[in-house]
């Protein structure tokens, strides 16, 4: 609690423990329900990294893959990749 006070004084917005817990829970629960093991998601994520890496300059740790539940109850695989530009390599058209 005291930490959040200091952060608020400094104008930093840090998610509260309550908000953290809720967000993390919504994530695991969706994974548990989808019956897609997190290990499989991780393997998919690693392969996505390998593919994207061939063409784009990326921070491998910043490739994120997660399941989200759509309105109609189906699961969507959502990936978030931060790219710092196109790789300069033969066969890749320059920007």
């Amino acid at each position, binding site marked *: 609690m005291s930490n959040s006070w200091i952060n608020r004084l400094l104008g930093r917005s840090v998610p509260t*423990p*309550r*908000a953290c*817990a809720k967000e993390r829970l919504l994530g695991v629960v969706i994974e*548990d*329900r989808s019956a897609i093991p997190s290990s499989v998601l991780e393997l998919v994520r690693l392969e996505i990294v390998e593919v994207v890496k061939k063409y784009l300059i990326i921070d491998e740790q910043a490739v994120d893959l997660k399941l989200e539940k759509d309105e109609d109850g189906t699961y969507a695989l959502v990936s978030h990749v931060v790219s710092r530009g196109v790789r300069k390599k033969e066969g890749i058209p320059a920007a």
Partner: protein
Amino acid sequence: MSDDVRVVVVTSGKGGVGKTTTTANVGMALAVQGQKVALMDADIGLRNLDLALGLENRIVYDVIDVVEGRARLKQALIRDKRMQNLAMLPAAQTRDKSAVTAGQMKQVVEELKEEGFTFILIDCPAGIEQGFKNATAGATEAIVVTNPEMASVRDADRIIGLLEAEGLRDPMLIVNRIRVKMVKSQDMLSVEDVQEVLGNSVKLLGVVPDDNSIITSTNRGEPVALSKESVAGQAYRDVAMRLLGQQVPFMDLDERNGFLDRFKKLFTSK
């Protein structure tokens, strides 16, 4: 007639969230309302419901003795010393979950129905294995107990899925050990947060505050539901009324922490 009997399993997935305490107190509160209540401890090998009720010294036979024919159900049932219309069927302490099958547990529930009880509450063991399957076998309704804490909510979600697979749809939820001050300071999941995570197939049956009186009354072997002053006791009595179909508003737990209430408490507590 025995079709009117309510058979409710009390589950959670995770251990230590208050299943046994909930079973004992909701059962006691239902008995106070005049229901004929049987409490069945399905946690074979880890008997605890007897302690929550203060009946540990009365046990002669247990559920395994009944299943294996060494005792009749009537002999194994222990009448509560305070409430004549409350009875407990103890779990065996020296055996394990594999000592009974789901079919046998179902048979015991059927026999309990014939005894004229109006409510049968089954205290389910933690976990999702055989013990869970045994405990849910004879039930037609389910209560899921959870704490406003991550591991417990996650396990509750798993259990809700497994209950549905067993044909127990739309379980009722009890959020146990809520600390209103921590929720207000954004440090703890709120009841609404828990509901949002678990989805709207789950119906909120009760909210029980984290309350020292649960510990002291359990230590004395007196279910807190019998204590007029206890907020947790009131929460359990409310659960019983809701189970009986009454619309009971959820307590404003925050109010109880106010100055006036503390002041009042000075005069009402022993």
